[in-house]
């Protein structure tokens, strides 16, 4: 299982609010801001749960950079899957 996770080259990123999905596709990285400051999540990141501060999420895919302005939320990272649950 761990080897399978390491061999993956992209994260599966989803950014959603209760009523809308803003982003749902593979990405190379996702960057945001929490209480301690800016952070990046790349492939192989340790399991991670953080509350997000109001910021601009930056999601880098192989072809583009997507920026999403948020008011806050929660990021859950596990086994190269990053889910952002935006605040209502």
């Amino acid at each position, binding site marked *: 299982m761990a080897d399978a996770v390491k061999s993956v080259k992209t994260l599966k990123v989803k950014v959603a609010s209760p009523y809308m999905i803003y982003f749902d596709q593979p990405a190379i990285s996702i960057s945001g801001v929490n209480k301690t400051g800016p952070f990046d999540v790349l492939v192989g990141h340790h399991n991670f749960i953080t509350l997000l501060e109001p910021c601009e999420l930056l999601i880098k895919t192989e072809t583009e950079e997507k920026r999403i302005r948020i008011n806050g939320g929660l990021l859950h990272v596990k086994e190269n899957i990053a889910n952002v649950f935006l605040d*209502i």
Partner: protein
Amino acid sequence: MKQLNEISAEQDAMQSVVGLTDVFEGLASMRIAQIKDQVLSSEQFFNELWSIYSLVRLGKQFSYGRQESDAVQDKELFITITAEGGFSGDIDQKLIDWMLSFYNPDKQDLIIIGHHGAIQLAQAGVDFKRYFKLPLHDNNINVEPLIDQVKQYKSTTVFYQAYVTLMVQDIKKIELRKAIVQASHKSSDNVISEENYIFEPSPQVVASHLESTMMQITLTQTILDSKLAQYASRFRSMRTASERANEMMRDLRLEYSRTRRHIADERLKEVINGLVKAGGTL
């Protein structure tokens, strides 16, 4: 007997009523479809959040997103969701009457949502702690002021109108904590702890944030369910009004034809009488 122009004017007025009720019926039907989509989408979001929360909370009871230092009143909070205006039949009255059958001012505080319900409570001489307008829009409903109130009480019960089908609406009550637990699906994943996860800032704060978010979703869902029932009730009222207006249109058309025939008959009679008086024979 009415004049032809009077009947014709009534027909025009009735035609406008048919047109208006059809428009309201169409609008209500469209809103129902939109809200149903929203409810489905937020249910999925809720379940994903719950699957994290159930693993983070480590067996703790749901605590309404409160911090341990927050003061809690030894009272229950009743939240009643009614319509903002008319056009929604008698369902609000039923809801208020039903809620009042449980209400004891010494044990419960009351928050009313919707102008229609607030007026009915005022007429019944019942005091309420807060009144909120029912949001006119169906998206991005801000329930934060409600959550602030909910956190102050040991428990909260919501009374609302529930959508069963387009033609059937019901009144319901639900204890908020139970609503949240019932809405969740059990997860079989491993427990999330500081041993296998990095938390920022801490598991307690994360769990508390998740509780607040799930409470917001549940309250929003209840408001949406209530709005769904109100739109359905309005749809039904408009459908009945439209049918009644169409019946009246048929009656007016009949009356119009009858009056026109009567006038023609009278004219013919006058012509014949005139001829007879003039000395002619038939």
